[in-house]
């Protein structure tokens, strides 16, 4: 067995060593470091999948058993998200091999590795303060990635992200302090076991602090003001990491804290309300956008809202649907942003007006946009169809008819603006400059499109993971027992 803690150790070692490789073998070698790192990590994650699906993997550090030392607890949910995050990281690492990253490039590669490492750390750790440390790592890396393009818009987006992100982290830290003051332990399973002892006022305060804090990374209303600007300003590979890795870690934080640690259904409804507001505001704002990148950013907010509604509904099917939707969001938004990155490198603008007729001029890139958009709006036979149908039907089955209607309203708005995008891509004639697609960037987006199609035909590939993950969230006894032993 390969210990999953190696994902963290390898990422750190490689991130620290980037300048050494550059100095030993020349600057050209540096760009292969993220690729090697994510390939090793993905391998570690994949060999641990069967073990984690059987029983949560508990990895101790420094030789101390929980609750005295820090431990990682990786169940089906953790391994599913960690694999997804490393997979997105690997694809982005292939993409940046032939994409012009901002200078100094070595720093960009370090930040890329550490942002992904932070997100994987969040989904694997079993200690709530350690969760905060990884949250800090992933957010500080993302601030710098957001600012790395060094244009006015990029710095503005990064600044908004820094203000909201540090506010969010502080609130999470305050919430952790409240729980620690009451229980004297930081181990998540130990807190979950004793959560009944916490005073109600304190628990309400801590819950509100946690949900507001993690809402920043999960792109949830009202903490998502940074998303449109930071997404628009950041370089495309970084945006793919935001959508594919960091938003997933935010969702995980909310799910883990509200299901495993607090475990009280009365709070779950709050997640649904926040989710539905996020969904509608995101989709409505996307409707007005004239810039494709900005439109995708708002659409990303809408999608994360849908994930939150589904996760908050609190039945096995809705949570599984929400996680499936989160998976699709990562893959599809990754595809759209990275394809748009290829286009913008050639056209020099992501304004929809300038992309007129692009689908006819570049049929293959047009096809990739077509696949991504159809999957996003939930058309068969693409992956998005299954997650959307699972979410809507399971929410109706859970008796949340109003929410189901609101989700369908959101979906209708989504169809409206994406059809407009498709019409722009395939009407008129392309007037922009000539450009060609490099092999590696083309390969990356092709892989993502293939994932969408394959999952569309075999949704079992994903449901095989999301159902055990949903079961893990609902069965907190198993989680506590796996870490602390004994009967719960």
């Amino acid at each position: 067995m390969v210990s999953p803690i190696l994902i963290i150790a390898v990422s750190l070692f490689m991130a620290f060593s980037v300048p050494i490789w550059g100095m030993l073998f020349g600057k050209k070698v540096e760009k292969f470091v993220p690729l090697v790192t994510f390939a090793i990590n993905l391998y570690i994650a994949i060999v641990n999948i069967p073990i984690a699906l059987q029983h949560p993997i508990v990895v101790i550090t420094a030789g101390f058993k929980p609750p005295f030392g820090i431990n990682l607890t990786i169940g089906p949910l953790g391994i599913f998200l960690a694999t997804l995050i490393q997979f997105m990281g690997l694809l982005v690492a292939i993409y940046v091999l032939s994409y012009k990253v901002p200078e100094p490039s070595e720093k960009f590669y370090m930040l890329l590795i550490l942002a992904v490492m932070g997100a994987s750390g969040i989904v694997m750790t079993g200690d709530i303060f350690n969760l905060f440390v990884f949250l800090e790592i992933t957010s500080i890396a993302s601030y710098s990635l957001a600012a790395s393009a060094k244009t006015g818009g990029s710095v503005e987006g990064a600044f908004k992200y820094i203000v909201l992100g540090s506010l969010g982290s502080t609130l999470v830290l305050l919430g952790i302090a409240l729980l620690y003051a009451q229980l004297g332990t930081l181990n998540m399973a130990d807190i979950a076991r004793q959560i009944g002892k916490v005073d109600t006022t304190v628990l309400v305060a801590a819950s509100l602090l946690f949900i507001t804090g993690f809402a920043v990374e999960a792109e949830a209303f009202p903490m998502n003001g940074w998303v449109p600007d930071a997404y628009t300003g950041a370089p495309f590979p970084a945006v793919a990491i935001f959508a594919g890795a960091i938003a997933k870690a935010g969702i995980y934080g909310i799910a883990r804290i509200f299901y495993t640690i607090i475990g009280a259904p009365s709070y779950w409804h709050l997640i649904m309300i926040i989710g539905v507001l996020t969904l509608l505001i995101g989709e409505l704002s996307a409707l007005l956008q004239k810039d494709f990148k900005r439109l995708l950013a708002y659409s990303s907010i809408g999608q994360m809202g849908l994930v939150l509604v589904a996760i908050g509904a609190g039945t096995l099917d809705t949570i599984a649907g929400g996680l499936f939707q989160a998976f699709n969001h990562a893959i599809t938004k990754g595809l759209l942003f990275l394809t748009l990155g290829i286009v913008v490198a050639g056209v020099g603008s992501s304004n929809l007006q300038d992309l007129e007729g692009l689908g006819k001029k570049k049929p293959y890139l047009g096809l990739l946009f077509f696949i991504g958009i159809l999957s996003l709006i939930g058309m068969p036979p693409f992956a998005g169809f299954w997650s959307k149908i699972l979410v809507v039907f399971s929410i109706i089955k859970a008796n949340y008819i109003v929410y189901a209607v609101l989700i369908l309203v959101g979906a209708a708005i989504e169809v409206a603006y994406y059809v407009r995008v498709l019409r722009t891509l395939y009407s008129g004639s392309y007037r922009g400059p000539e450009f060609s697609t490099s092999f590696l960037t083309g390969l990356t987006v092709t892989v993502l499109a293939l994932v969408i199609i394959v999952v569309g035909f075999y949704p079992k590939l994903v449901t095989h993971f999301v159902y055990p993950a949903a079961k893990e969230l609902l069965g907190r006894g198993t989680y506590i027992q796996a870490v602390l032993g004994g009967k719960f």
Partner: protein
Amino acid sequence: MIKKAFALLLVIIIGIFLSATFAKIPFGVPKTVVGKYYLDHGVNDLGGVNIVTSIVVLYRGFDTLGEVTVLFLAATGLGMVLAGLREKDEKKRKKTAPSLIMRTETKLLFPMIILFGAYIFIHGHLTPGGGFPGGVVIASAFLLMFLSHEKWEAKEKYTKITEALAGMTYVVIGLIGLYVAGSFLENFLPKGVPGNLFSAGIIPLIYTAIGFKVGSELTGLLQNLRETTE
């Protein structure tokens, strides 16, 4: 105006809510389970007499590795954002040249401050301090040199290499723990006699790595900031 009043109202409500919450938490009651365990077993478990250090480096060593990374990210992020700004910033500030006294004095002080920083991180398991403060002291020696000698610089190449090697050393120590003792960052050296310089297992090793890392990181950061204002 209305916006400001609304914001003020919100802050007041949150403030009242939070203070009501914190009022529920008893102050100064020694009841934390984990904390008590550390105090009772710390010296026996690890052989370090500075219990704070033992908690920081071993019991919660994984967090400390994370904190080192956070500092690393802050420095890297700043380097990322500032790179390229120097050429754009054409306005040069006027400055008065450092006096002879300052130039002579700092040259004498420089090695001593570095020695003091090294002392702090080497004795982290015995006395207050450790890798982070030790590293900051070392960086302050470089800051003094930057202030007093205009042409003097810490070459980016060297700070970068030191930083990388120190960080890699920390991870490798953790990995040796994983393969020799059984878990990541676990102590694999003899604990020694508590109170001696050679005691507390891997704590001095880790703190030395952190001291080098923090020192070179902050020096690099100061160098970055200095270049943009000159």
